[in-house]
């Protein structure tokens, strides 16, 4: 049907209508990532109007440090959502990471260089258990991960007898409070994490496999994608990210609590959705999720500076998720595309 691909024939006088129909050049993902980033900047600078203390460099630093946790979580959650799942075990896994880091390691432990990876590995096992339930026992992801969450949280309650003890490992403190090249360490780590995460999701073979599986498992299987391994991977990575956040939180606040992960579940899903991912899988980018995470963090700091109650924060968060979902519907993208061409 594309006549341009054929060699042009001189004597061909038939009415050549030609194929003038073009396809959209700007992808849905680019549009949502851009709009989230612009929204972040607008909020950051318009916040100055409310309070001159806002929108300064030090506030940007604060946002990045506070946003660190959510960005890391949204990477794992984003991968699970990309393959059509949902990880509700994040809060318990965050707490697991935090409590193991304090009770196994604690401050001044010379063995932390191998114990910290061991903590992450234990968290990874939680993810593996979820994946096994989802793939082989065919339990719906949200039920399986919720069950894992309850199991892990209860085990931790028993393990700590209700009061977590111990102090933060030195490396965790250095991660959150240290400096690298004059910049706060968490910001440097965050930038590296975002680059690696973006390369993994958008530029690596594994990332492509995950997109393929999220689009259509059967078609991916037919296209010789290693489906089983690639369905396990996101749950394990998500759990490791959660464990990492648990360790980082311990370093930030110098101690673990049994409810330290509770406030991160909905924001982690919200970041991914605001960032333009489809909740049904197969669509979305990590950069979008990063934008979503930072947007939520900025809102949080603005609400905190305004001295609003915590309840308002959740109300605003809920409204934003709803608005984002409404705005991200297909029709809007159709309109935007046709405007730009």
């Amino acid at each position, binding site marked *: 049907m594309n006549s341009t691909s054929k060699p042009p024939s001189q*004597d*061909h*006088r038939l009415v050549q209508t030609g194929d003038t129909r073009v396809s959209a050049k700007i992808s849905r993902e680019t549009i949502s990532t851009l709009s989230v980033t612009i929204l972040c900047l607008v909020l950051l600078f318009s916040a100055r109007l409310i309070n001159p203390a806002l929108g300064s460099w030090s506030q940007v630093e604060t946002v990045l440090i506070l946003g660190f946790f959510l960005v890391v979580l949204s990477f794992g959650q984003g991968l699970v959502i990309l393959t059509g799942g949902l990880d509700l075990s994040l809060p318990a896994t965050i707490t697991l990471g935090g409590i193991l880091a304090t009770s196994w390691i604690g401050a001044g432990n010379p063995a932390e260089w191998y114990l910290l990876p061991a903590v992450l590995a234990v968290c990874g096992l939680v993810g593996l258990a979820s994946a096994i339930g989802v793939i082989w026992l065919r339990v719906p992801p949200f039920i399986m991960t919720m069950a894992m969450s309850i199991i892990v949280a209860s085990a931790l309650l028993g393990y700590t007898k209700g009061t977590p003890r111990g102090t933060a490992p030195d490396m965790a403190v250095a991660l959150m409070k240290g400096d690298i090249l004059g910049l706060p360490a968490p910001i440097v780590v965050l930038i590296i994490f975002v680059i690696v995460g973006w390369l993994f999701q958008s530029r690596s*073979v594994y990332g492509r496999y995950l997109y393929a599986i999220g689009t259509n498992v059967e078609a991916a299987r037919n296209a010789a994608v290693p489906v089983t391994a690639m369905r396990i991977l996101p749950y394990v990575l998500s759990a490791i990210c959660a464990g990492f956040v648990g360790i980082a939180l311990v370093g930030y606040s110098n101690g673990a609590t049994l409810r330290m992960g509770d406030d991160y579940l909905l924001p982690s899903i919200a970041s991914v959705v605001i960032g333009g991912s489809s909740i049904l899988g197969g669509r979305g980018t990590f950069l979008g999720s990063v934008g979503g995470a930072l947007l939520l963090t900025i809102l949080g700091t603005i609400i905190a500076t305004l001295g609003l109650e915590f309840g308002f924060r959740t109300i605003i968060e809920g409204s934003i998720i709803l608005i984002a979902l409404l705005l991200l519907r297909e029709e809007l993208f159709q309109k935007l595309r*046709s405007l730009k061409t």
Partner: protein
Amino acid sequence: MRDVFELEGETRRVLRDQTNFSHSELTKDTFALQAIGLRKTYGATVALERGDIGLKSGQVHALLGENGAGKSTLVRILAGAVYPDSGEMFLDGAPYAPRNLMEARQNQVATAFQELSLVPNLTVAQNLLLPKLPKAGPWFVSAKDTNRAGEKILARHGLDRIDPQAEISKLPLADRQRIEITRALENAGRVLILDEPTASLAETDWLFERISLARERQVAVLYISHRLAEVREICSEATVLRNGSAIASVGLADATDSDIFEMMVGRKAAHQRTPRSTRASGDKRARLAVKQLGGHNLHNVSFELRPGEILGVAALEGQGQQWLFKMLAGLDQPAEGQIYVDDQPVKLAGPRAALKTGSGIAYLPEERKTEGILGGLSAATNIVLPVLGSATRSPLISPTLETAVAQSSADKVEMSTRYLNFAIGDLSGGNQQKALIARTLATGAKTLLLFDPSRGVDVGTKQSIYTAIRNFADEGGSVLFYSSELPEIVQLADRCMVIYGGQVVRSFAGEDITEQNLVAAMLGHVTSENTIEVKA
């Protein structure tokens, strides 16, 4: 009234309806359903540029065009499923602008869709009668009356053998298509639209009889099909679409196949039937061999596939051919028998395992949309996906390299470069199929399993696919393919086996592969002459 006009300096002629669309104001009352200048865009993609068509009562009108020419969009607008951006429609001279399928149906315009629109978990009778089921009392529907009414409808259309209480999802695809058509027939008082009605039907007798009866009732029928022979048999006129515009309406009696082909693609058909080479020599060891394979409804299937050989499979719908391909692709495990790759007995755990076994097996699944393409990903990614890591030589993908690798395979199926970076879901069916064929070629596998490689694609695309398959075999590759179209088997296959009732009933080679021979064997009509027994 028609005439033939010549294009300046050209010997080629285009037949054009003299009752042209520009004079439509004068003639609109002669049409049962007429559409003028329909246009529909999806975002920046113009699916239909200028849709003009006129259907007359009691006549069967064909809609022809390559894949992606805009046929489906035009059909969906006429059916009320899609609302056009601009353009007008008239039903018996009165303005007609259905907002949905029900509104079209109230106007006695009914459509049988290619992607069947039946509710899979309801019964045959319920599907036939929806949305108005017989009531028992004010609130409840009556299952008994529903079944009785369904039974009557089935009997009226010669489908007594189908149980009205059967759940749609339990029926074979061909019967589901018959139900879809039956429902449209029931509701089509004025206009009946049949979109690829023979896509899943092995024989056309039942359908053509139904269409003749509808014609006698003065229903105007729009018939969309790729099969020109069928179109000639049943239709009197045809409208040709190309690149989203109606190119011409012609009387089929006046137009040769080559005229129509030229209007569809804008060039002459290249009818080269390459003489079968002697590439498949008997002494080479088999790439793929199957001994006494069984499982599901298959029994005792044995054959060998040698390097450079194209082996066709002919069968009616549902004779077990799907299971054969699934077992060979590793998607299903055989209950009995053994598969050999390069003379080694193998157990195939899945398509990825099959690809990595011996010289490699690549599989083209039956359903392009649900088992083949990955809609949101680019065509390039879709092509290189099976060999992503090795083709791009690192775990990180360079988009340039990815496109380059995809390009070399896309060239083999004559797929244009400019489509490679589009999301494959936005491409036409023909280009999607080309990309999937390119994918099997890109894997580097020496054996291809192609299930209906040219299903639902236009003539031009078909030729590109045939060429790619032949070239692959000429370079020493082995191909096992099933086709629902006999001419395809006749044109492509070096050898052909016919499956009936789960068994290989006959095998043909070379000149014996004729449509007549195949049809007889496919219907289970076994004679002993002119056959070569299957080598076990």
